[in-house]
């Protein structure tokens, strides 16, 4: 129950900046869609005057555009930044909110879980908003083109298999779960980095560097193993090894976080 309350407080504090982020992303995308369609209209008219036929527009042209990619990039960077900021935010200023959080009479791991779930929910939130936005954009896109009688090529389903977007539109629920697990792994790694750094920052000036070494060391070892055995294993065995390595790393990272959060954290 405590975790749920902690989550609601975390969300409450991040609400404003999250809405701003979403606002920016939507503005960027819908604004660009307008401009894109307007330009298509202009070029189509031109082509028609010159009598050239066979000009078609595909939704992929829109998705592949730099601005759209930029918006997705911004979202990703924002989330990576936030996975770290959700902790550092509580260390800001002399009045460290972390002091308050650490004196709450429940296990500190509840705090870890709460922040973890908050980040994952925010990421899923962005996914959700992007799904809805893209779907909406396609409706606008096709409606506008039909209205202007510009030939439209390819379906929405086809368009979303466009390289990196396939990550957002996995073919099956299982793939979706795998993607989320991988995202969660990245968030966990970032969390561990922060906690190790915060556990060492009063002990040595090199704490960020040391934290990076510790976390990347913990990740590098299994990765090296996977690469080394790549020569000897087949796809099914490699997946097995990868799964094992992932579980091992998750276990290692969580243990490390727990140790630093409960024993080494220094405010």
């Amino acid at each position, binding site marked *: 129950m*405590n975790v749920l*309350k*902690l989550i609601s*407080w975390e969300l409450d*504090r991040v609400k404003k900046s999250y809405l701003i982020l979403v606002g920016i992303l939507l503005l960027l995308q819908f604004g660009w869609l307008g401009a894109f369609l307007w330009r298509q209209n202009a070029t189509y008219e031109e082509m028609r005057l010159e009598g050239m036929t066979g000009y078609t527009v595909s939704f992929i042209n829109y998705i592949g555009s730099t601005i759209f990619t930029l918006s997705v990039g911004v979202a990703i960077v924002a989330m990576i930044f936030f996975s770290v900021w959700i902790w550092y935010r509580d260390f800001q*200023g*002399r*009045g*460290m*909110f972390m*002091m*308050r959080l*650490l*004196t*709450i*009479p*429940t296990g500190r791991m509840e705090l870890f879980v709460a922040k973890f779930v908050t980040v994952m929910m925010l990421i899923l939130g962005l996914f959700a908003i992007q799904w809805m936005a893209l779907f909406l954009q396609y409706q606008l896109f096709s409606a506008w083109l039909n209205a202007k009688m510009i030939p439209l090529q390819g379906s929405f389903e086809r368009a979303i298999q466009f390289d990196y977007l396939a990550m957002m539109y996995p073919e099956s629920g299982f793939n979706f779960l795998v993607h989320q697990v991988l995202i969660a792994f990245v968030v966990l790694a970032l969390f561990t980095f922060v906690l190790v750094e915060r556990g060492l920052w*009063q*002990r*040595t*000036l090199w704490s960020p560097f040391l934290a990076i070494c510790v976390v990347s060391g913990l990740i590098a070892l299994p990765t090296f193993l996977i690469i080394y055995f790549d020569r000897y294993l087949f796809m099914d065995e490699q997946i097995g090894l990868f799964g094992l390595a992932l579980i091992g790393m998750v276990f290692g990272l969580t243990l490390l976080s727990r140790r630093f959060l409960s*024993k*080494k*954290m*220094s*405010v």
Partner: protein
Amino acid sequence: MIEVLGVKKRYRNKQVIEDVSFTANKGEITCLIGLNGTGKSTILKGIMGLTPFDQGNVLIDGKPIDLNTVAFVPDHSTFPIHFSIEQCEAFMRDFYPKFDPKLFARLVDEFKLFPEDKLRELSKGTLAKVNLALGIAQDPDYLLLDEPFSGIDVFSKEQIVELFSSDIMEDRGVLITTHEIDDIEYLVDKAVMLNRGRIVREFDVEDVRFIHGKSIVDVMREEYGA
């Protein structure tokens, strides 16, 4: 009783706490005295588990710390400054089972605070009072106060001193750190003096007055050669 047993702490290259051991009893006001920067706050934070000691152990009533029974009031507010007092209280109510809204309301009234004020708008003195109220309202057995009086206006100081002699603080163990003793000369039962990371004096204040006729300030003068 709070028992601090042989704790050591090093910050980067400075051994801040050499070897500190002392006790603070329940129902008594114990004052941890030391010049600025001698690790007083670190000891309090260590007791609360907010900063790990390199060595040594802290027992409260013989057991490792139970955050339900010990409240910590640092010398600065621990809530984001855009929070209002109401939001702080809501937070405390959510996460501190022993938080007593009635006690908090009484303190708010006694300190003449306005719940809707944002921490950002409050003076240092008022902020200190809010912190204190939030700490006491947890109805703790032990209350740790870090420099409660430093840099706050005289009237707030008076209100706080009055609080200590009131029933609200009765049979709670209070551990205060300060380097200016004159505000609370008459409130303290026991004084623990810290110098260069070690406990140099630990004495019952009234006994010293009775036997040696010395006030705490006198002992401080001897110890720190102020």
